[in-house]
């Protein structure tokens, strides 16, 4: 199957399907792979309809590889919302799975890609590619460790702050502080609102430091060095 771009009618139909699914779990997914609802992305990019992802990181890597094989730059596709919405449609069974006869449908922005930056990062496919294509395997793990149908607090807290999520050195520091390589998961308590040096505090502190320091030009060790004491325990 080649990647397609949903048009307005296709997006409307997809949204309608998601709404109806809330009432009837057995409703059939409409065929939006026809000219009326979508058109093929040019150059053609083949994706595997059988491909199953466990984590979002796997999906990010797969998509990044697909585009890079065809020499498609991130800048060329990142704002084609119809493309990301089509990929969500294409992998809908994975990003909105039926488990034990139940389906857990979240806000529409997870499936229909929004041009509003405050909602863009909620999209399960667009934000996955966006984050992976910037930070690659090593540094995207803290955001993309979740199952393919799940979001997490790291994405919620970081990705909506666009200047922070796009700063590679800040993300390296976040991985150094909060990632537990043995568990292959974030460190316990990092998402807690009460624990000193939690991720919310991290973002707030970076925001404050940005007023004084030229964070953009600082490497990860420099940034770590100016963080206040409350973050010391997380470095271990």
């Amino acid at each position: 199957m080649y990647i397609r771009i949903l048009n307005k009618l296709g997006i409307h139909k997809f949204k309608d399907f998601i709404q109806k699914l809330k009432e009837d779990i057995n409703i059939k997914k409409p065929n939006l792979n026809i000219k009326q609802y979508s058109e093929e992305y040019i150059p053609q990019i083949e994706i595997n309809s059988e491909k199953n992802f466990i984590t979002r990181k796997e999906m990010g890597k797969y998509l990044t590889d697909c585009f890079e094989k065809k020499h498609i730059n991130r800048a060329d596709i990142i704002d084609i919302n119809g493309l990301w919405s089509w990929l969500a449609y294409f992998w809908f069974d994975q990003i909105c799975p039926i488990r034990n006869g139940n389906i857990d449908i979240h806000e529409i922005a997870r499936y229909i890609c929004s041009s509003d930056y405050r909602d863009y990062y909620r999209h399960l496919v667009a934000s996955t590619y966006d984050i992976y294509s910037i930070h690659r395997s090593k540094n995207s793990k803290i955001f993309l460790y979740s199952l393919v149908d799940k979001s997490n607090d790291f994405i919620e807290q970081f990705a909506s702050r666009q200047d922070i999520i796009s700063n590679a050195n800040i993300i390296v520091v976040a991985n150094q502080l909060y990632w537990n390589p043995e568990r292959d998961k974030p460190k316990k308590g990092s998402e807690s609102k009460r624990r000193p040096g939690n991720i919310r505090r991290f973002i707030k502190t970076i925001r404050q430091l940005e007023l004084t320091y030229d964070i953009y030009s600082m490497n990860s060790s420099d940034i770590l060095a100016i963080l206040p004491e409350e973050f010391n325990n997380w470095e271990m």
Partner: protein
Amino acid sequence: MKRRFNYTGRKTIPKDKISITLNKEGNNTKSFQADLKFERSNFPNNAVVYVEAYHKTENKRYNFGTIWNIIQPINTSLSDLAYIEDLKFRVLVVDETSVHGRIIAHADKIKPVSSRGKKSILPVRFCDLGQQIWRVVYSGDEDSPVLELNENIPGIHIIAKNDPQFTMLVYPAVIREILKHMVFIERIDSISDPSTEWHKDWLDFVRKILPNDFPENLDEDDFDNDDILHWIDKVIEEFCNNRNEWSEYVMQVGEG
């Protein structure tokens, strides 16, 4: 005027000292030029000047030399950025004499010259809002208000412009929402010279609607909420009084 403490010592560069021009080939933006006027600034001569182009998750930095010797870099290509159309710029003056560079002055959210000009204080965007007819989002420049209308309503472009029912029902509610947001959520730092441009535009707009009764303590911390709500009510009342659409609206309703 509301007192604000600047613990960082960082200065704000007046925007009239900066002019950014986009270089285009046809409709495609290729690069930019920045005209920076720091001749009379008190910044150290060796402070480094950076210009950053950014939008959403894209950010690219260009070194413009030092205060003493500002140099337009040979390469200011923007072609590897995804969101060129809505790009904004920031200018930073950085003291790099210590271990960690310190920002001593900045200017942010600068729009290129070509995209300035006469602007609407309430841009309208047509998008899919589910079953909502309208909403106000604060996603414009400096988080300024944008009116979003549901594109799924047939003829909404024309309705929004010409339908007296729409004008009399929606716009008063929109203005009320924006004034409340500006005064109670964002807070105004000065009624004579607000630092946020859209606050200035909206205060000017409101002064035209209701020239008298302007609450002079709007930029203070201790204004009476009820007084301000009452003032907003009066602004809306006057806005409605001035609309010629009223008689048409009444007629339409009467005709059923």
